[in-house]
C-alpha cells in the first residue's frame, strides 16, 4: 500500500510543459525492484516525465491530425490508470500510472504493484491503487481549492507547501491521510485534554468556545428536456449535507436527522462520511439502480456521528422526483436567414416562486453573428450578446402569477463573421440552459429540522440549518431539431 512516485505537471497554453513538483520514494522503489525482479521498470528522470504523460493524455503534437502513438483506436483510455511507454513504442512500460487532471494541472502517481507483474494483474487487486486515487483527490483539492482554478501565485504557494504536507500525510510513500482541502482555515483548537479518551487521528485538537452546529442541505437538479413524444424527458436530483460542528469534547456525539414529507420519494444511493458512527441498514438499501416500488424506507434518516473540526460532507444522496421544477418548451423555425423562436417556461406548482436568480441562456452555434434581434419576453429582461451569439433571458426573482413566462420573436443572422461553433449543435439542434437557485427549498422535500439536531454536550449549542435548490446541467432542447442521443436513463 505505497506509491513509488508522485508528480504535479502543468501545461499552460503557450508555455512549455513543466514539472511543478515531484517526489520519489526510494524505499518503495527498493521494494518494487525486488517484487518485479527482471520485469522491473525503473522510474525515468523527471526531465522526461511530462512528455510521457502528455502522450498518454493525447496532448502532444496538437498540430498533427493523426499520430499512431496517440490516436490508435485499440489503445483504450477507459481506466484511471495508464501506462507510460518509457522506451518508446513497443518498449517497456511503467504501469499503473494514475492520473487526475484539472485545468492545466496534471497530477500523477505510480502505485506499487504488490503482485507478480506478469500477466498484468487487474487494477482492483492492487491495494495501492485506491490509496493512490484518494491521495490524488486530496492533492487536487489542496492545490485547486473549491474554485478549481487558483491564481498562479496562490498555486505556487500551495505547491511550495507540498513538501511539508507530504511529511505528514505520506512521508515514506505510504499514505497515512489525505491532504486537507485548500482554504480550510486551520481551526483554533486546544490540544487534547489527555485522559483515557483517545484522540482521533482526524482531529487535531478540541474546540473551545461557543458551541455552534451548522447543517446546510444543498440539492442540485439536472434535466434534459426534449419536448418530443418519441424521447423521454429526464431529470434527477442529488443532494448533500454539509456540516460544521463547533462542539466541545474529544468525541462529542451529534445526531442529524433528515426527514421527508409524507409520500416523498425515498433518498437513494446514500453515501456517508467516515465519522458516522452507526448506520441503520434500511438507510442504505434504497438504490437508484433498483426498481423502486414505493415500499422503500422513506425516513427519518438518522446520522449519529462524532464530527471533525472542519467543514465536512456528512452524507450525499440522489432522488427521483416525479416532476422537474421548470418545464420548458423550445421551438425554432428556420426561415431564410433568420430564426423564428418560441420559448415557454412553466414553473411547477409545488416549487416556491422565489428565486435568488433565474436565467435562461440561449446560445446559437455554427451560424454567422447575429444582426437584428426582435424578441419579446412576457416577464423579466432580455440581454443580447451579439458577439457571442447568445441571448440571456433574466427572469429575476419571480415567475409571473400564472407561473409561466414566454419568449417570442425572430433573430437575423446577417453578420458576415462566423460565430462560435459546436459540433453538437448543428442545424436546428439547439438548447436552452437554465441557471437558477431557490433558497430554502429542496425538490425531494428533504429537510433538516433544527430541533432534530441533537448534540450531547454540556453547553447547549446554537443550531443553524439551511437548504437550497440549485440547477446543474439543466437543458431544454429545441423540439423541432435533433437533440443528440440522450443520457442513459431512458426506459428500456
Amino acid at each position, binding site marked *: 500500500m505505497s506509491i513509488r512516485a508522485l508528480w504535479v505537471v502543468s501545461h499552460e497554453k503557450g508555455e512549455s510543459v513543466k514539472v511543478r513538483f515531484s517526489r520519489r520514494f*526510494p524505499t518503495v522503489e527498493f521494494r518494487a525492484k525486488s517484487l518485479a525482479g527482471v520485469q522491473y521498470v525503473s522510474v525515468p528522470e523527471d526531465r522526461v516525465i511530462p512528455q510521457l504523460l502528455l502522450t498518454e493524455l493525447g496532448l502532444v503534437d496538437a498540430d498533427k491530425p493523426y499520430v499512431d502513438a496517440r490516436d490508435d483506436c*485499440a489503445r483504450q483510455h477507459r481506466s*484511471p490508470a495508464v501506462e507510460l511507454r518509457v522506451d518508446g513504442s513497443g518498449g517497456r512500460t511503467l504501469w499503473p500510472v494514475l492520473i487526475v487532471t484539472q485545468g492545466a494541472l496534471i497530477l500523477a502517481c505510480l502505485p506499487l504493484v*504488490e503482485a507478480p507483474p506478469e500477466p498484468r494483474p487487474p487494477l482492483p487487486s492492487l491495494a495501492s491503487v485506491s490509496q493512490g486515487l484518494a491521495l490524488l483527490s486530496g492533492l487536487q483539492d489542496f492545490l485547486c481549492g473549491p474554485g478549481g482554478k487558483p491564481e498562479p501565485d496562490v498555486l505556487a504557494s500551495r505547491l511550495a507547501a507540498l513538501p511539508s504536507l507530504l511529511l505528514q500525510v505520506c512521508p515514506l510513500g505510504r499514505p497515512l491521510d489525505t491532504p486537507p482541502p485548500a482554504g480550510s482555515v486551520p481551526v483554533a483548537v486546544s490540544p487534547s485534554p489527555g485522559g483515557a479518551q*483517545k*484522540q482521533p487521528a482526524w482531529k487535531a485538537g478540541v474546540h473551545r468556545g461557543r458551541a455552534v452546529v451548522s447543517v446546510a442541505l444543498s440539492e442540485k437538479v439536472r434535466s434534459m428536456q426534449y419536448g418530443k413524444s418519441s424521447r423521454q424527458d429526464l431529470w434527477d436530483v442529488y443532494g448533500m449535507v454539509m456540516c460544521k460542528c463547533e462542539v466541545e469534547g474529544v468525541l462529542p456525539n451529534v445526531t442529524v436527522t433528515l426527514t421527508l414529507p409524507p409520500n416523498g420519494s425515498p433518498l437513494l444511493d446514500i453515501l456517508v462520511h467516515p465519522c458516522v458512527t452507526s448506520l441503520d441498514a434500511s438507510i442504505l438499501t434504497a438504490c437508484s439502480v433498483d426498481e423502486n416500488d414505493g415500499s422503500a424506507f422513506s425516513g427519518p434518516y438518522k446520522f449519529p456521528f462524532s464530527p471533525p473540526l472542519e467543514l465536512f460532507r456528512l452524507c450525499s444522496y440522489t432522488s427521483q422526483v416525479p416532476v422537474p421544477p421548470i418545464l420548458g418548451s423550445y421551438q425554432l423555425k428556420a426561415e431564410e436567414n433568420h430564426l423564428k423562436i418560441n420559448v415557454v417556461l412553466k414553473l411547477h406548482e409545488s416549487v416556491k416562486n422565489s428565486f435568488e436568480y433565474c436565467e435562461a441562456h440561449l446560445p446559437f452555434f455554427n451560424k454567422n453573428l447575429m444582426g437584428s434581434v426582435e424578441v419579446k419576453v412576457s416577464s423579466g429582461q432580455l440581454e443580447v450578446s451579439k458577439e457571442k451569439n447568445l441571448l440571456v433571458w433574466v427572469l429575476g426573482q419571480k415567475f409571473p402569477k400564472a407561473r409561466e413566462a414566454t419568449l417570442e420573436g425572430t433573430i437575423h443572422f446577417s453578420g458576415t463573421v462566423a460565430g462560435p461553433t459546436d459540433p453538437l449543435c448543428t442545424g436546428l439542434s439547439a438548447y436552452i440552459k437554465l441557471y437558477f437557485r431557490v433558497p430554502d427549498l429542496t425538490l425531494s422535500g428533504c429537510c433538516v429540522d433544527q430541533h432534530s439536531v441533537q448534540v450531547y454536550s454540556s453547553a447547549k449549542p446554537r443550531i443553524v440549518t439551511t437548504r437550497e435548490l440549485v440547477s446543474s446541467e439543466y437543458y431544454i432542447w429545441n423540439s423541432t431539431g435533433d437533440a443528440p442521443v440522450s443520457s442513459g436513463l431512458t426506459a428500456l
Partner: protein
Amino acid sequence: MTIADLWDQRIPAFLLSPSQFLATTTSESFLAELLHELRNDKANDQVKILLVSVLLEHPTILCPCTSVGEETALELLSVFSHMPQKSISLKCNVMLAITNVIICTSCLATHTKMAEDWLDLLFQTIQDTNDYRCGLSQQPLRATACDCLREMETCSPGLLSQKLEALYLLKQQETTVLHQSYCMLYTLGLKNAIRILTNQKDVTDLEFKSILGGNEGFAWKSNQLGLTFLPINMMVQVPRLPPGLDCKELKSVMSSLLEESYLLTPTSQSALLRELVEVVAMVPGLSPTLFKSQLLRLFGTAEVELMHATLFMKETFTDSLFTAEDENFLLKRLVSTAQHPLLRIPEKLFYMDCILHFPENRPISSSGEESLPVLVTPRLAASLLPTVFNDSATMLCRLNLLCLVYLEADEGGEDKGIDYLFNHIMALLKIVDSDGSREVVVTSFRAVYIFLMHFSGMEELSEKLIDRLCDMYSRQCRLAPNLIGLVDRIQECLDDYVWSVKLLRGLQKCIMEMPPLQLTIHNLSWHLKVLKRVAKEGQITQRNTIYLLLNVLINSNLCERGKWQVGNAVLAVCRNLLEHPSIDQVFIELADLLQYISVHYDDTDIKDHARFYYSLLTNLSWEKLTGVLAKGPDVGRAKERSHSATMAESEGIASNLTLRKTERHVLRLVKVQEKSLQSSSESSESLEATEETKKWLEVYQEQFQVPGFGSEVTLRYNLTHANEADTLFNRVFTICLHFELKDLNYAKVSDIHVPCVFRDRKPPEVNVKLRPFQPYPTTLCVSAIFTTQDGRSWHSRLPDVSVSFPEIFLPLPLPLNTSRACKEEVFDRIWEAAASGSPDKSAISLFCFETGDESLADLIKTHFQGYLITDEESKRSWKVLFFLPPMCHVLLMITQAEDAVQVSIATDNWELLPFVNSYLQNITDHSSTTGRDG
C-alpha cells in the same frame, strides 16, 4: 548570489535530471558538499531541508554501495544529534533520509552496525512518550519515527516480531493523535509475526502465544521471507497456521483494534482492515464474522479506499462473511457509486473496473480477465449507459461494460439494449461528421472499435456501420488514417476479415463515386492512402482503382505540376497493386497507367520508378514479381531488394533504405592502451630557441591566438566486434559512427566513417576528436549505421564510451624541441599567477598520501611520465603539468616529506578540483591518504 540561492538552483537541477547534473561533477563530491553544508551552522533550516531532499529521493545515486551508505548515514546521524531541538521539521526530514539511506543501500538487509544503532534510536524515540518535558512540539518526531520503523519492518519483515508486547503497551498508552501511528506499527508487526510463524511446521500453543508477549530485541534472524512477499490475495494458497490453537488473546486484540479503527483516518483505516483481513485468513481459529460489525459502515462509505478494502474482504472471505443478500447489495452499491454525480471521474472509472473484477461468492471463472458478474443484469446496468455528454474515458468505460452486459443478456430485451448502444455510436459519428475536434474523432473510433469487438457478428448493425463510415468519409476524408487504423486493428484482433474487407470495399466505391470537383490535391492524398490500403486486400477487385488513377492523371494537371509526393503516393498504390493476386485481370490497365506516368509525369524520379514497375510488370511472372517485391529478412538476395527499394514503398522509405534496428551491440570501441601524448594542434610551429627565457610565457600564450590551438583531445580506439556471435555481422561495411554527448560540456563530435570491419581481421583504428568547453569527464553514446554483406542496412547502438578525467590530459602544448628550462619557466609563471589568484577562478590545494620510495617513483612513471616538467629524483621533488583544453591547467608540485607525499595543486579553474582530487585518490588508492586543504 548567496549560498542559499545557489542551492535553490542546484538542487532542483539535480532532481530534474540526476544524470545531467552529475555530468559536471561527481556524486562523491556532490555528496561531500551536501554533508558539508548540512553541518554549516549558518545555513537556515529551509536550505537544509532542501539539501536533505536529495538524499530523501535519490539515496542510491549518491550512495552507490553499502559502505558509502553506512558512512553517509553516520554523517547524517551526527548532524541529527547536533541539531537544535526546535528544528522539528528538519529533524524529521533527516530521520527519513537516514532511513532511506539505510534501507536502500542494503545496510538494513546486511545487518550493519549502523542499521542496528539506528533501529535502537528509533525505538527509543517512540518509547519516549513524555511530551510534556519538551512540549507537544516534539510529537512529529515520534510520528516520523513510527513511520520509519514501519517502513523498516516492511522491508525486513519480522524485525519487530519479538517486540510486540512493548508495542502493544505503547499503543494502549497513547491517547494523542499519534495513536494511529502506534496502532499501524503494531498491526504490521503482528501480521508479519504470524506470517513468519505459518512457515514453521508445527506450531505449539506456547509459540503462538509468545508472539503477543514478545519483549526482546530486534529479530534480525527471522528475515527468511525476504521483502518480496506478496499480500495473501496474490497467493495461490493462503499460508495458514494449524487449527486448534488457542486464539482467545489474539481475538481480543483484534476486536480492540477493530473497535478503535474508527479513530484512524480513512486511508489508515483501509490499511488496517487489510492487515487484519490477512491475519484472520492465516489463523483458522479466528472467524471472519469478527468484521461483521463493521460491514454496514463500510457499505455506506463515500471513501474509495474503504470501499476497496471491503471488496478485498469480500474476495478473501466470500460467503463465510458475505451472504448472497450482502453480495447482491454490495454489487448494487458499486453500480450506483460508479455513476454517482458527486464522485470524481477516476474513482468512478475505478468502480467500473471493480464491477468487472467483482469477487463473486460463486465465480464461474477466475481467470483474472474482465468478466461480468452474473448479478449484473441489463436493468441494473441501465444507469451506466454511455451518453455523448460523458467525458471520453467514462464513455468508453461504460460502453465496454454495457457491451458485455448485452452480450451476456438473455434473449428478449437484449436487442433493444444493443440498439441503444448502436444509436449511441451513430450519435458520436454524427458529431464527428459535423467537424468534431480531434479528441472527439479519436474517442469515437475507439468506441466503434469496442462495439465491433463485441458485436461484429451482428450483420445488420455492422453493415449499417459500414454505410455510415463510408458516408462520413465522403465528406470528411481527413478521417482516412483513423479508418485505416480501425481496419488494421480489427483484422489484428478479430480473425474475421469480412467486416474490414467490406468497409474497404465501401471506401473504394465511395472514392470512385466522388464528383471530380472533390478530388482536390489535398483530398487526393487521403484517398490515395485509402486506395493503397484497399490494394492490399486480395478479395477486392482493383479495376476501378486503376481507372480512377488513370482518369485523374489524364484529366487533371497533376502530371504537369509534377509534385513528387503525389506521384509517390500514386506509385505506392501501384506497388500494392503489383502484388495483388488478381493482377491478371487488370494487367493491361495497370500497364497503361504505369506507362502513362512514365511518359507524362513531370518528375524524373517518379518517371523512372513508373518505368521500372512497368518493366517488372511486363517481364516477370506474378510469383516472381511478388518475390521481388516481398519485404522481410527471408529474401536473402541483396540485388533484388535494392531494386524493390528504388521502387519506393511510401514517402521514399523503401525496404533497403529501411534501416533495420538491432537491439544488440554489434560493434564496440576499445580504447587503444598507449595514450596519444600529442596535442592535435597543427599550428605548433617550431619556436625560436634563441628567444629570451622570460618571454616564454607570452610566447606560450600567444599560441592560443591561433584559432583552434590546443583545443582538441584525440582519443584512439579500435573498432571491433562486440561479443555478439551472429554470423550475419561477421563482415560489415561502410560504417558510419555517430556520437551523441550526454552533456553540454563538449562540442558536437563529427561522424566517423570506416570502410569495413571483419571479424577475422585486425580491427581498424578510429580517432575520436573531442573539443571540450569544460574539461569534465563525460560519456559518449555511440551508434553505428552499417551495411551487411546481403545489402541490408542496420542501425545499432554501441556500448557507451566513457571518457575519464585523465584521458583529457594533454602535455604542455609547446613545440617538441622546447627545452626543459623553458617549460619550467612557463610552469613557474603559471603557478605564480594561480597562487596570486589570477585568473579569478584560480585555486591552490593540497593533497597528501603515504607511500614508499619505490612505489612513488613507480607511480610517477606510470601516471605522470608524459607530463613531467622537472624530474628531480634526487631531491624527491617533481613538477607535473596537465593541460586541459580549451585552456585549463592543472599543476602539481610533488614533494616527498618525511612521512607522506605532498602534492601541491594549482589550477586556473577551481571547478576542476573535485576531479583532480578523485583522480589523485584513485591512483594513490593503495596508499592511505589524508585529506586535502583548500
